[in-house]
C-alpha cells in the first residue's frame, strides 16, 4: 500500500469538469450556464456509469459468493450430489474469472480503490473455489466446511 492514500478518495475522473478559460466567448450568459449544465450532466452520467459498473461487478461477485456458500452447504447437508456440486463450483469459478478479467482489463476500475479491493477479493474467491473443488472431489467434508467459512465476498458483507 506504499504510496497509496488509505483515505477513500473520490475518483478524480468523477470530478465535474472545470473550465480554465471562457469556453464559449460571445455567447449569452444563459447559453453558457446551459452549456455548463450539459457538461456537468455529462460528467455525472459518466461518473454514474463507472459507479453503476462497479456496483454491477460487486453484485455479480456477491451472487457468486452466495452461490458457492449455498452449494457447499447443500453438499455438506447431503441435499445435493457431489456431481452437481462439482459442476456448479466449476461454472462459478468460470464466472468469477470472467468478472476478474473484466475488472483487471479496466484501468478505471483498478485505479478506483473500491475496484482494486473488489478485484483482490475476486482473486481470493477464485483460489477458494479451486480448493473447494478439490474438497468435493476427495469428499473431504471438514476441509470444505472450513473453506466455506472463508468465502471473501458475500451479500451484505463489506471489506
Amino acid at each position, binding site marked *: 500500500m506504499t504510496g497509496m492514500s488509505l483515505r477513500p478518495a473520490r475518483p478524480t475522473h468523477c470530478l465535474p469538469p472545470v473550465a480554465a478559460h471562457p469556453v464559449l466567448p460571445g455567447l449569452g450568459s444563459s447559453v453558457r450556464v446551459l452549456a455548463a449544465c450539459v457538461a456537468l450532466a455529462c460528467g455525472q452520467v459518466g461518473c454514474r456509469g463507472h459507479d453503476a459498473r462497479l456496483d454491477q461487478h460487486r453484485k455479480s461477485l456477491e*451472487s457468486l459468493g452466495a452461490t458457492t456458500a449455498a452449494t457447499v452447504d447443500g453438499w455438506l447437508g447431503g441435499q445435493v450430489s457431489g456431481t452437481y456440486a462439482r459442476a456448479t463450483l466449476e461454472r462459478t469459478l468460470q464466472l468469477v474469472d470472467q468478472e476478474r478479467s473484466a475488472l483487471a482489463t479496466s484501468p478505471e476500475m483498478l485505479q478506483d480503490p473500491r475496484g482494486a479491493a473488489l478485484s483482490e477479493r475476486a482473486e481470493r474467491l477464485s483460489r477458494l473455489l479451486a480448493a473447494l473443488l478439490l474438497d468435493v472431489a476427495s469428499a473431504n467434508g471438514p476441509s470444505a466446511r472450513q473453506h466455506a467459512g472463508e468465502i471473501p465476498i458475500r451479500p451484505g458483507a463489506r471489506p
Partner: protein
Amino acid sequence: VSAIVDLVLGIVTSIGGFVEVGSISTSAQAGSEFGFQLLWAILVAALMLAMLNEMSGRFATISRRSLVSAVRERFGIHFQLVPLGAELLIDVLLLAAEVGGAAIALRLLTGVGFLWVVVPLGLLAWLILWLCGFSAIEHGIGLLGLVTLSFVVAAWKLGPDVGDVTRGLMPSLPDHDWERYAFLAVSIMGATVSPYLLNFYSSGTIEEKLTEKELWVNTTTGYAGTAFGSVVSMGVLVTSAMVLGPRHILVDSYEQAALMFVPPFGTWGIALFAAALGVGCFGAAVEITLNAGYALSQAFGWSWGANKPRREAARFTFAFTTVLAGALLVALSGVDPLRLTMVSVALTVVAMPAVVLPFLVLMNDDKFVKEHKSGALGNGLLAALTIFAALLALVVVPLEILGG
C-alpha cells in the same frame, strides 16, 4: 368424443410445451432480481400469445394454409424473405440454446461435459423427427413436459403470500435498476411470443386436419392451454423469487438456477430441476427443428409434413436437417446457452413486428379467412399488439446494452 380427447390432449400439450430455455431463464432472472414484481409481464405475454395462437389456428383451419405459405402468396417472395430470414436466424440461435440447455441438464445429473452431449442430443432430435409423426411428436413432448409442473408444485410448497403475488400481477415501477427491469420485462415477452410458435401452431393445425366445425377446439386450446402454461412460467418466477432472491443469488447460469429446487424438494431437487430443464429444452429443440423445416419448405413451395413418408418430403427433411446441423455448430462453439438465450429473445422482439404486421393483413383478407375474419376487438388488439411490438423492437437493443 374424439374432439374432447383432442381438446384435453391439446391443453395438456400446451402446458407441457410452454416452458423452455427462454421462459425458464427470463423468469428465473426476473424472480431473483425483482421478486414477484415482473409477474405482470408473464401475464401480458401469455395474453398476447393466446390471442395469436387462436388466430393462427383459425387462419390455418379456414384457409388450409400455414402462415408462411399465406405470407408468400399474399405479399410475394421478396417480402417473404424478411420475416423468413429473421425467423430462421432466431430458430438457429434458439435451437442452439435449447440443445445447450438440455446438455447442461444432463451435466447436472451425470457430470458429463456439456460439449460431449451436444451432438448425441442433436442426433436424438433428428431421429425422433425421422421416425415419428406429428401427433406422436407433439403429444409425446407435451406429456413428458408435464414434469415442468414441478415449478408450480415448488412455488406452492414455498407458500407465497397471495397478496404479494396479486400485487405482482399489476404493473409497477421498480425501486432500483429500472433499465434491467425494463429489459427483463421485454425479454419475458420475447421469450413467450416467439415467431416459431405461430407458424408451428398453424402448421400443426394443418397436420392434424382440424375442420371448421372443430374451431371451438382451437379456441379453447389456444386460450386455456396458454393460460395454464403461463402458470408454469409464473411458478419459475415465484420459486426463484422466494429461494434465490433472499440469498442474493442472481441467475447467471443454469447451475445457479437449479438451487431454487433444493429448499422445496430436498435431495430430489436437483434431479427434478434437471428433468424439467432437460425435457423442456429438448422438446422445444425438436419443435423448433420441425418448424424450421416447415418454414423453409412452405416459403419455397416444397412438399412438407411430419406425417409424410420422408421420401415424399425429401427437401423438407433436408431443410430441417441443415438447420439442426447449423444450430449444433453454434452450440459446439461453446457459447454460453444462457447468454445465447438472452440474445435470441432480444432478436425475437426485434423481429416481432415483421411477423405480426402481415398477420394483421391476412386475418382481414376474405380470400383466406372468409367469414371468419377477426372482429373489431380482435383487429384492435392485433393492431395494438403490432404497435406495441414495434415500440418494443425499438427499445430492446438499447435496453440490452443498458440492462442486459
